[in-house]
């Protein structure tokens, strides 16, 4: 079962636009929410992450907004650039795990930023 739902599947914006990718989760035991960025032919790379005790986190042009009551979180990319064109994955990790991080991933969003 897919415990993390991600939307949209694909997204096209113009340079300078602010793409927004949304994720919703079901399991209230999740306690860590990372976003990964993946370029073609490469493995996913950690982009930014948030814990549920804060509502927003910014790192450079990337911002995560977190709504614990709605069980939703989203990634915003400010002043998007063609180099941001990649596939983005949200993920969630359950607390209380004794063996490994056990990330659950969303389905991914393919972002294209046109020049």
């Amino acid at each position: 079962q897919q415990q993390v739902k991600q939307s949209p599947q694909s997204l096209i914006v113009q340079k300078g636009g602010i793409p927004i990718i949304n994720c919703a989760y079901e399991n209230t035991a999740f306690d860590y929410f990372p976003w990964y960025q993946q370029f073609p032919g490469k493995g996913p790379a950690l982009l930014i992450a948030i814990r549920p005790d804060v509502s927003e986190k910014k790192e450079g042009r990337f911002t995560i907004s977190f709504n614990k009551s709605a069980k939703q979180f989203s990634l915003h990319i400010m002043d998007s650039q063609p180099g941001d064109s990649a596939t983005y994955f949200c993920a969630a990790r359950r607390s209380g795990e004794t063996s490994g991080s056990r990330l659950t991933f969303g389905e991914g969003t393919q972002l294209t930023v046109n020049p």
Partner: protein
Amino acid sequence: DAGITQSPRHKVTETGTPVTLRCHQTENHRYMYWYRQDPGHGLRLIHYSYGVKDTDKGEVSDGYSVSRSKTEDFLLTLESATSSQTSVYFCAISESRRTYEYFGPGTRLTVT
């Protein structure tokens, strides 16, 4: 890719043949993971290891087995490959259960 290599990077095999994928790390991290990536499914955990000879199943473990005889190596074996196992396989490592996972470059496996 954080000191993670995967081999082979590409493989084409026939249905019914055994296949072993290797993940090697130079970070001395305790945890290692195998994921598969398929369109529309994101990444799904196959198996993971929390130490030498300590492994456990993930979300999609049927048809796969793993072994870890050394800290640096984690092997994924498809005992009898099927077309449904055509996928891109990623190895990942983490230092502890509460730190980030770092991913390798992936292995593209095609089962014909």
